[in-house]
């Protein structure tokens, strides 16, 4: 029953430590920021780090499987290009969701914001006949301002984010109709450099992919390598403690909602460039997949945290799965909705469980 000190692990024995000694033991392989309080499950301990990269492996496996099954449709370069390009716009919107979620707020109006931006851009380009660069800048500013209004309603009036932004969605739907008269606006008279900016390819890679990459890079740097990002994660996790650490919680929440608004507008701008027309109501279908990919992303790379790299992995995993299934079962048009809805529910339940375990400790 009685053990001597010597039998114990040398590393953590308090007797051979100085009065104020390092007791931070750091055995290699135990370093794991993301495991839940119940400890890391055994299956994740291997070199594969399934707890962090499962989505990446799954994406690769799916890509290979579909390429083998469908060598003529899925396994082609042009299909890869289609997946990359179509995900780029969804990706910008998904990152917009991730930014607000990281700061502990929520913006469901971002699809409506995207729709509104498309309509506004179309009107500025045709009726107002502005140079396209200026029109794009104004549109992005409008998006950010919508985020600022959301922020005001949430932080100053104390309205729950879900309610505030649901209301804002409806208001924006009305504004979109008013601005564009409920019509798709063709952009025939606009300088060809405008559509060029959405349809060009660089070394055969669609240019929109580079837009997504640029946005992702900036956000990744911001969230993971700057004090600002550290603060955003802190307010997203425990706003009360963050406030008492001297962090201006309301200001940062407002800032992230404005970034969300600007990114939603950017998604609208890129879509308009790609289509060469400002399609009325084009934002709405992007809403659900964006949330699905964001929550799925929070289970990857840095589990439990809304992070950029995880979000990108989730985005492409979803895109590959949906596209593959669509090509495999061309007569089942509902397959996309089914996959995205299921992923949203499953991913949210995983993330919510991780967060709940954290809270109840």
């Amino acid at each position, binding site marked *: 029953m009685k053990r001597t000190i010597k039998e114990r692990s040398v590393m953590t024995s308090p007797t051979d430590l100085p009065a104020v000694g390092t007791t931070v033991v750091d055995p290699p392989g135990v370093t794991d920021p993301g495991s839940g309080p119940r400890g890391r499950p055994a299956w994740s301990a291997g070199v594969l780090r399934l707890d962090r990269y499962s989505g990446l492996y799954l994406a690769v496996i799916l890509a290979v499987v579909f390429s083998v099954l469908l060598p003529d449709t899925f396994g082609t370069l042009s299909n890869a290009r289609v997946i990359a390009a179509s995900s780029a716009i969804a990706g910008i919107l998904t990152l917009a969701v991730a930014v607000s979620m990281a700061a502990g707020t929520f913006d469901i109006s971002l699809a409506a914001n995207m729709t509104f931006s498309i309509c506004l851009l179309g009107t500025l380009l045709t009726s107002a006949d502005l140079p396209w660069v200026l029109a794009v800048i104004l549109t992005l500013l409008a998006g950010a301002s919508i985020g600022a209004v959301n922020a005001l309603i949430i932080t100053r009036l104390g309205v729950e984010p879900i309610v505030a932004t649901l209301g804002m969605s409806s208001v924006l739907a009305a504004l979109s109709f008013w601005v564009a008269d409920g019509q798709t606006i063709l952009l025939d008279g606009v300088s060809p450099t405008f559509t060029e900016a959405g349809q060009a390819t660089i070394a055969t890679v669609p240019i929109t992919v580079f837009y997504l990459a640029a946005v992702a890079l900036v956000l990744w740097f911001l969230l993971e390598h700057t004090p600002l990002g550290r603060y955003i994660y802190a307010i997203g996790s425990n706003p009360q403690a963050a406030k008492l*650490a001297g962090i201006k919680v309301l200001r940062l929440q407002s800032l992230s909602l404005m970034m969300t608004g600007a990114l939603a507008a950017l998604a609208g701008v890129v879509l308009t460039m790609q289509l060469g027309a400002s399609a009325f109501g084009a934002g709405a279908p992007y809403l659900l997949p964006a949330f699905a990919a964001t929550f799925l992303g929070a289970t990857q790379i840095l589990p439990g945290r809304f992070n950029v790299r995880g979000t990108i992995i989730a985005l492409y995993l979803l895109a590959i799965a949906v596209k593959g299934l669509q090509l495999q079962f061309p007569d089942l048009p509902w397959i996309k909705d089914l996959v995205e809805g299921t992923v949203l529910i499953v991913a949210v339940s995983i993330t919510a469980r991780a967060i709940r375990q954290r809270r109840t400790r």
Partner: protein
Amino acid sequence: MNPDQRAPRLDLRAVSKTFGGTRVLHDVSLDIAPGEVHALVGQNGSGKSTLIKILAGFHEADPGASALVDGRPRSLGDPDDIHDAGVRFVHQDLGLVPALSVVDNLALGHGYARGMGGRINWRRQTAAAEAALRAIGYEVDVRALVEDLQPVERTAVAIARALQSAQGEMSVLVLDEPTATMPKAEVQRLFEIINTVRQQGVGILYVSHHLEEVFELADRVTVLVDGHRVATKRCSELDQRGLVDLMTGGVVDEARQRSTTVPGEPLLALRGVRGAEIVELDLQVLAGEVVGVAGITGSGREELCSLIFGAKPREGRVTVRGRELPALRPHTACALGMALVPANRLRDGIVSGLNVRENANLTTVRRLARHVRIRPRDDRRQAASISTKMSVKAPSLESPIESLSGGNQQKVVLGKWLQTDPHVLLLDEPTQGVDIKAKAEIHHLIDDVASKGVAVLVCSSDEAELERLCDRVLVLRHGRVVSEFNGAEVQTRRLVHTSLGLTS
């Protein structure tokens, strides 16, 4: 080993626990006889709470462990089975639902009073909740959310909930650091309750870092060192010194080490400060001075630091280094060189979701950035130096903060603020849940800080701590200062007496 022939109320055998490759409990066995108070002691991170959480079914033990309650085997890892066996818990920081009211928390697992048609009878329910708390000596607004309560009130709710069990239903009562933020007078009241319960034959498992409590209350004591049981002894066979030796393998230096400089100019001044409990308070803290505040629960002691720092609304003037600090502006307080180590560690102190490194560097991360980029190496180095200085025991700097033991979380919070080189340091229950050795170290750090000319204000429920640390102590009662002790007058006994309203 049993003091008598009856079956032990609780018999835990061969409990081990591994968290992600690190073994934190090694084959620990422990038994509690009917009517026995069995103390469980050990340094921060030695595995006390883990053992208790395993018993409660919150963590799963490694294979091989077993538990018998009243001689009957029970399945570890099944909270319902353990609850049915009559084991009740007052956890260190878990077990209440923060977002629910006190009434709801007391009703959870016990049931609501029903009225006509199965409707909840809120009036009866509320009255019952108030009565349950009054029975253990606390006046708490039972409609308040648990997350808004002071730590000691939360403990009271947890105790009241455990005691709700019908007569004879409770077999074992487990208390994990119930007195961490409890003034002496209230500790005595808790002991009376515990003694009543033990006379009914309930077995009690009692965790505390206050060793004098162990000797006053317990029949036997089990000592954990790094997850190993190193001894189970009758308290009568031990003295405090011997127990400290078993726990730490060495002596603890409790002497004050302050270069007695003459205090400088006032760095912190309060005039007519008023809050929810504090009626009127004037106070000055000079550079290099350590001023203490004592008082029972509800005296205003618990809210003072939050009022000053701006975590709670207040009236009256606060000046820091001659500059006025408006109410409810924590970031201005930080900018003026003030630091607050809050009492409510889970709500105000740690940011769960961030890891140990990010928590330790939260207040100083701006200094670690060149241009806008945080330099990863400095980030790691500073976090490592904080945890070395505070002797934090953590699996790694990248582990989630919530995987640290309670005392180690507290050390991280303290370290995070000491790192900012504050001019004014507000400490609210600075050593709650910290083991005696680390506590002595922290006291030395506070000595150092004061010697460097920082104005320190300590609000503590631990009167002995105030005696150890302070040049001057104010005693609060009903929101006002009732007396002030200077220098050698600062004595635990006098502080306890005056805070109770007795003459010292």
